[in-house]
């Protein structure tokens, strides 16, 4: 038994089996339970250590060989596996309420496996190929066969595919930089290649136009899942570069570049979010701003520690899940998701409305909600580095907050007094209630995540200080 089999091959097999399940409820329960089980195994089963169960002794090896290379999931990666599969369980249990379980769970498990493989593959540069494979699997998820493929999915495919060659080629150039560190032109070339690769993969300004388009044309829940998982893994992949190459980590130009790009994402995402008239597009711009938060946290992580980056991951996943679920529920009332068509819907979908508003407020860093502690910590860290950056950070947050308030105004704006009706079904109510409670719980007790989050930076050698 080895760890890559448990957390890469097994989920693919489970995903393949889930393809054969037809019933939405069965698929959601099966997929969610399996993900939870994989998260539980990662939590309790030590990797590369013998586990004694009475007369039996069980040891899970960290390494598996594959076509002459190795896949390594060591003990230091276990907390990340707990987080990934734990959050997947949340998304998969909620998939039934969003009505996409039979599509999301099989393909979602395969995508998750490929992305876990991208963390495990050695040398880590080859991760971009596995990320590309995950992107290819994501296309049928985003564009069901019965619907015309939109421009968003085509641009998603183009941009993500173009990112891969840049990263692979940058990896080759970086090897040259290691061999001759004084070669300035090679250093610049490799940095530019790397930057372009990540700009495509992370949808950095101005390459993010596919995100709003996708959220207009595809299921918000499915897009939300990808917008949670892909940037999370790509940011960790990017941090591997910082961890591996000291000159990248210590380069003031690279750190400043990351900070500027992060602020650009946050400010443009926040400001565009403030002026949207479409709930899906609003979510898109807030997720763009979320990528900005991650980049800012990475820029601070290079100088200090990666703790801050990991502090963002769980609240981000939770708020995106609630947001996407709420939008999926509201979409059953009106598919266009325009402000004008959903005006006053709070009276018929009060829980979905509450989920939508609280998730947006959490993303804006509103106190008492899950997003508040990491945003406050990031703001504090940023203010130590640059006051101007802290001010721009505030501008981005205000943009998201204005978007949330406009959304609230539209959703509760009813022309005449009409009765309150709960149109959400029992599953939807249950999932939304759990999610909303989770948002408050993580806002009030952020230290509850400590045992998992504190261990995550240990997967890096130099960024874990």
């Amino acid at each position, binding site marked *: 038994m080895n760890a890559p089999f448990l957390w890469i091959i097994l989920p693919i097999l489970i995903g393949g089996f889930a393809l054969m399940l037809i019933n939405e409820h069965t698929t959601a329960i099966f997929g969610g339970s399996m993900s939870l089980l994989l998260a539980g195994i990662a939590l309790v089963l030590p990797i590369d250590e013998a586990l004694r169960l009475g007369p039996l002794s069980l040891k899970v090896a960290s390494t598996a060989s594959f*076509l002459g290379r190795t896949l390594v999931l060591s003990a230091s990666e276990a907390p990340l596996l707990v987080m990934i599969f734990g959050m997947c369980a949340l998304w998969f249990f909620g998939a039934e309420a969003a009505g996409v379980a039979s599509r999301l769970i099989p393909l979602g498990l395969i995508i998750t496996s490929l992305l876990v493989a991208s963390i495990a593959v050695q040398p880590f540069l080859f991760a971009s190929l596995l990320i590309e494979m995950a992107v290819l699997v994501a296309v049928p998820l985003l564009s069901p066969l019965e619907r015309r493929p939109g421009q968003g999915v085509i641009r998603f495919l183009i941009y993500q*595919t173009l990112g891969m060659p840049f990263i692979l080629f940058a990896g080759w150039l970086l090897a040259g930089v290691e061999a001759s560190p004084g070669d300035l032109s090679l250093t610049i070339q490799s940095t530019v290649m790397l930057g372009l690769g990540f700009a495509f993969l992370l949808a950095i300004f101005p390459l993010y136009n596919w995100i709003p388009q996708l959220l207009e044309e595809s299921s918000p829940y499915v897009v939300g899942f990808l917008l949670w998982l892909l940037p999370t893994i790509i940011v960790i992949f990017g941090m591997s570069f910082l961890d591996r190459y000291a000159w990248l980590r210590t380069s003031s130009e690279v750190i400043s570049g990351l900070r500027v790009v992060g602020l650009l994402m946050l400010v443009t995402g926040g400001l565009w979010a403030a002026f949207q008239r479409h709930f899906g597009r609003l979510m898109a711009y807030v997720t763009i701003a979320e990528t900005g938060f991650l980049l800012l946290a990475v820029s601070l992580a290079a100088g200090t520690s990666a703790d801050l980056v990991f502090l963002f991951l769980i609240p981000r996943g939770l708020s995106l899940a609630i947001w996407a679920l709420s939008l999926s529920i509201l979409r059953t009332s009106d598919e266009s998701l325009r402000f004008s068509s959903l005006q006053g819907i709070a009276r018929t979908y009060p829980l979905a409305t509450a989920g939508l508003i609280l998730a947006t407020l959490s993303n804006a860093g509103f106190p008492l909600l899950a997003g508040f502690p990491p945003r406050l910590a990031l703001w504090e860290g940023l203010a130590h580095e640059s006051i101007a950056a802290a001010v721009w950070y505030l501008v981005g947050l205000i943009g998201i907050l204005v978007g949330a308030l406009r959304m609230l105004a539209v959703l509760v704006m009813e022309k005449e007094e009409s009765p309150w009706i709960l149109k959400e079904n029992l599953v939807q109510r249950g999932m939304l209630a759990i999610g909303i409670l989770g948002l408050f719980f993580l806002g009030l007790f952020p230290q509850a995540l400590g045992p998992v989050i504190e261990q995550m930076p240990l997967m890096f050698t130099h960024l874990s200080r």
Partner: protein
Amino acid sequence: MLAALLPWFAVLIVVITSTGLFLNRDWRWDLGLLAVQYLGVSILVAQHWPLGMAAAKLVTGWMATAALGMTFTALPPHEESIERIWPQGLGFRFFMVGMILVLTISVTPRMAGSMPGIGAPVIAGTILLIGIGLLHLGTSSQIARVIFGLLTVLSGFEILYAAVEGSILVAALLAVVTLGLGLVGAYLLNGSIVAGDL
């Protein structure tokens, strides 16, 4: 002598096929050109990889082409819609290909000098394919054109990357990506049929 000429012959194949793929709008010709393009690509890849691995690239390319071909045969007869943003005349497309050819001819010697051991034909093939692939992507949003463009860009990259990385895992993953792009293209084209778009 023949061995020295073979890579340049492959570049000639790539010039003809990639140009034809960009200029032509009939899917039967396009698929034929794409299949022949993969022959040129695998000859260029074989300059640095063993013949077996280069042949795998050829087979994978043909499989991706076959997947697209099977979908095209199921399509009802249709005219490719015209993009409004860019001029789409044959003359304009010729001009754009000409620009890429000029760029390839002017940049190849310089790059061959700065990347010793890779060889001018490999670099020429790379620049040409990536350039024309990007032209596909930049001038059309048709699913078929986008997939042809992505496959062409990827082929160009693979030629150069084969010169610097000989890992079997990379070869296998790149083959999966090529095949995956073909299958995704077929899936998206099918989606257009089901939705009654074509």
